[in-house]
């Protein structure tokens, strides 16, 4: 039996806006098995980050979880009072973001920031916290760790800042790390280093939910992938399976849009149109407006997310029969 680090079922997030309520996350279910890296892929506004924030209990008001449950290592956490949730964050689940600067204190030395996080979550002495900070810095492979402790965030490169954030997230060896586009702002050679580091953490017992718009990043580290579009999961499969045979027309469009490094071409494939406004979603399938295979039924009814075979689920009428 595979133990689940994270299980999300039917998660729905509602935001009231002046022009009506929108649902940036709608009926999202996903699982992160212990010891794995699971990816969520999709374009901006598809609900990736909002899903992550809702799982963490970090939604910005007036956003609200209006339905669904979140289980962390088998324990339901959605109904816990805020005080309990806060205790979970940092202890059993933590999150890193695309831009580490937004979560680091610009006027405090980075070593000190990690030290304080340690002292907040444990009752160890100042000396002990110092020692552990240095250990963590070494573990996340910060070169010349000792001298880096007394740097301010702006004195570090983007890659080093992201390592500091990861050190901070790892203070209590959480069971789950949510990484929201952790390498998007980084150079490719630094990205390769950070991805390697995430794999080390996974091997050391922290499962990872990895959010990315980059299929290359997903292919490199993820075991399972969820494709999101307009707030919903539209496809889910193992990485191998999805890359071999994407079934949803949106997934297929994403894969066709990937640019090759190896060969040039005359014209790049595109997905026509743009991501729909959540206030003006079509009545049927959210992708119907851009879908090259859209039929009459697709315009009227929202398809269910159904398994076409064990471990591969798709939200598309065309794919249901398994036909190409």
């Amino acid at each position: 039996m595979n133990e689940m680090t994270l299980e999300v079922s039917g998660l729905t997030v509602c935001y009231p806006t002046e022009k009506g309520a929108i649902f940036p996350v709608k009926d999202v279910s996903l699982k992160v098995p212990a010891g794995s890296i699971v990816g969520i892929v999709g374009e901006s506004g598809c609900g990736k980050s909002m899903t992550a924030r809702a799982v963490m209990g970090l939604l910005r008001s007036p956003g609200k979880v209006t339905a669904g449950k979140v289980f962390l290592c088998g324990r339901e956490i959605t109904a816990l009072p805020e005080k309990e949730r806060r205790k979970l964050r940092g202890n059993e689940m933590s999150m890193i973001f695309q831009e580490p600067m937004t979560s680091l204190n610009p006027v405090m030395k980075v070593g000190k920031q990690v030290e304080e996080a340690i002292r907040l979550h444990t009752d160890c002495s100042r000396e002990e916290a110092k020692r552990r900070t240095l250990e963590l810095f070494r573990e996340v492979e910060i070169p010349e760790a000792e001298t880096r402790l007394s740097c301010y965030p702006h004195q570090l490169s983007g890659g080093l800042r992201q390592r500091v954030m990861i050190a901070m997230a790892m203070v209590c060896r959480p069971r789950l790390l949510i990484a929201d586009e952790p390498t998007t702002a980084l150079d490719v050679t630094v990205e390769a280093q950070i991805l390697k580091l995430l794999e080390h953490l996974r091997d050391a017992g922290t499962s990872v939910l990895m959010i990315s718009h980059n299929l290359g990043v997903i292919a490199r580290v993820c075991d399972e992938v969820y494709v999101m579009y307009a707030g919903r999961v539209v496809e889910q499969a193992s990485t191998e399976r999805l890359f071999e045979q994407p079934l949803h027309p949106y997934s297929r469009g994403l894969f066709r849009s990937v640019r090759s490094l190896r060969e040039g071409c005359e014209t790049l494939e595109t997905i026509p149109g743009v991501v729909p406004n959540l206030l003006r979603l079509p009545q049927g399938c959210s992708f119907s407006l851009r879908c090259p295979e859209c039929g009459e039924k697709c315009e009227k009814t929202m398809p269910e997310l159904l398994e076409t075979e064990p471990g591969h689920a798709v939200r598309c009428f065309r794919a249901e029969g398994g036909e190409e």
Partner: protein
Amino acid sequence: MSGYLLEARNVTKLFPAAGKKKVHAVSDVSLQIREGETLGLVGESGCGKSTLGRLLIRLLAPTSGEVRFRGENITALKDSDFRRIRKEMQLVFQDPYASLDPRMTVRDLVAEPIETWRLCGSREEVTDRVRELLRAVNVPEEFLYRYPHQFSGGQRQRIGIARAIAADPSFIVCDEPVSALDVSVQNQILNLLRDLKTSRKLTYLFISHDLSVVRYLADRVCIMFLGKICEIGDTEEIYTRPRHPYTRFLLDAVPVPDPSVRGKEIRLLKGEPPSPADPPTGCRFRTRCPRATEKCAASEPELRYIGGVQAACYYAEEGPA
């Protein structure tokens, strides 16, 4: 006449930095761009790509060296004499949100360069010209009197491009024009830029940190590291047979969407990038290079021809370390 549309000769740009230091943003760069070609410029954050792009179109003045446009030294020109050339050179920015004045309508945004250069007579003529330009970049005409915030990122970038081509330039610097856009929209813009290049006989300097973007658009590619050119030449040739150790790291690091290569060891760059305010002696890549020897520390390798491309490395013939 040199036969090149644009040429940089030993161009250097230093910026003042803290403690009397100088940031070596661009160091002794020489390159040539032929009429009608696209030169891709790649390298990591802070290596000097944008600075070089701005130097080439005289939005920045070099600390030393010169830039020639159609054989004429534009660095030496007085502002008043440069004006006639200014129109020939345009810039497309990365951020379609920040680069458009939010208080101006699309019509006025695109009309601005036409009016600045007095390319049309009456107001009607200008508006007709704007319509034509919007058609060229696939922005529906009925959006003429809308404001930038009413558009998606991709459409804003189209408007930015319409502005750049409005005065009929011959040379455009595209500085990360798709980095801020969604993947599916990036390709729409890249296709558009490629079409415009042919239909309007444009020459591009195309700056990107994304190697796949450059692979698609560039005839030749220039790879920079810390203000210096490492390697420059035919795109296909460099992507299949990189000569400079840094180019190899860069190409190897790009994550490919193929799970079957998962688990394959990727060679990771050691250490941290050196500071542009305090670049290493000798080869600027040597503190991170697996191949570096004493020779690399002692003196700086010059760009030299190896096969059809130029690379600046003493051991460029020797294959991966």
